[in-house]
């Protein structure tokens, strides 16, 4: 399973639900797999995709929130697993596209290439529902599961060279995303006096 194949599955599973993508290749592939207003592409803040997804999940318990993270990115913010384990948002699905390398920066191996186990880390931090998947069928099954707490999925993927980049305008990405998930935005919608 390549990352773009795995990304297409998540886009399909998400339906109208928001997807937050980590910077670099996860965001590029999300754009290529299916640009939609409910995609929040990050252009920086490496490591924070899961935190952004967590905040969104807390703000909007009525919405299922998907996060496309990378192994290198999550390793930069492992504390996020402890916070997610503490708060147990049942509407959060955190998918780590684990290609075992820093693909965006030239393919240097990450610690997961040498056995670092993000699935075990998530369980150790109190996230009970986890899965490590290697096939499209297994990813589809894990992503569709609904339980009493957050879902954490390590998708072992082969690097697939991205073919496109998402919009570059950060404020445009934000406004489009917030409108799509119907968050109030007086800045572009106007407001009563």
């Amino acid at each position, binding site marked *: 399973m390549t990352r773009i194949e795995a990304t297409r599955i998540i886009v399909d599973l998400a339906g109208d639900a928001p997807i937050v993508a980590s910077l670099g290749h996860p965001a590029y592939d999300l754009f290529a797999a299916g640009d939609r207003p409910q995609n929040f592409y990050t252009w920086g803040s490496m490591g924070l*995709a899961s935190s952004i997804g967590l*905040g969104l999940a*807390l*703000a909007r318990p009525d919405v299922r929130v998907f996060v496309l993270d990378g192994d290198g990115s999550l390793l930069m*913010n492992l504390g996020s697993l402890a916070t997610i384990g503490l708060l147990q948002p049942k509407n959060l699905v955190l998918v780590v596209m684990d290609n075992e390398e820093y693909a965006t920066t030239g393919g240097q191996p990450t610690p997961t290439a040498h056995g670092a186990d993000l699935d075990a880390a998530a369980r150790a931090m109190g996230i009970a529902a986890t899965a490590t998947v290697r096939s499209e069928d297994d990813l589809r099954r894990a992503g569709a599961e609904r339980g009493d707490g957050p879902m954490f999925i390590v998708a072992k993927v082969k690097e697939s060279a991205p073919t496109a980049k998402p919009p570059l305008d950060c404020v445009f990405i934000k406004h489009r995303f917030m409108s799509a998930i119907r968050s109030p935005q007086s800045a572009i919608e106007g407001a009563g006096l």
Partner: protein
Amino acid sequence: MTTTTAAPAWAVGVCTGVHAAGSRDVVYVPDNPLSHVLRVFEHQFRDVRLVLATREEEAFGIAAGLYLGGRLPTVMLQSSGIGNSLNALTSLLVPYQIPALMIVSMRGDSGEWNAAQVPMGRAVRAIFDSIGVPHATVGSADSAAETVRLAGKTAFGTRTLGACLLPRCLTLKVP
């Protein structure tokens, strides 16, 4: 309320200001003076959700997600944590124009005893200036609520960050 007698006036003022600015979500990494603020939130502002983060940078990520979901977030941290937060501030909240009210408990300013706290404490205002984050210093317990409320109003209204610094000469006073 049994605990209100022990709450320092500056801490009540900070909480009142955060609440009056419309924020009902406070993401924080604790420090000693902020423990007073947390206690006031817990006892007197029960509609405020407190979210503990493991690191300040993470707190800003959570705050950004809260805003995307329609909330007006506050981040509470010690000044040393600004150093941990810079990438989140400069590559997420600032370029996406995602606002947050920041309550910053100062270390390294007048009254500091720990040399390891001094360099960042001295640099905080210059760092805020260089990345375009407006900041105000809470000068007294009496002015705390209004200083914080106005900083929050500007931050949320203009989609910027707004920092309120709590100097040690304020937070170390015994009630």
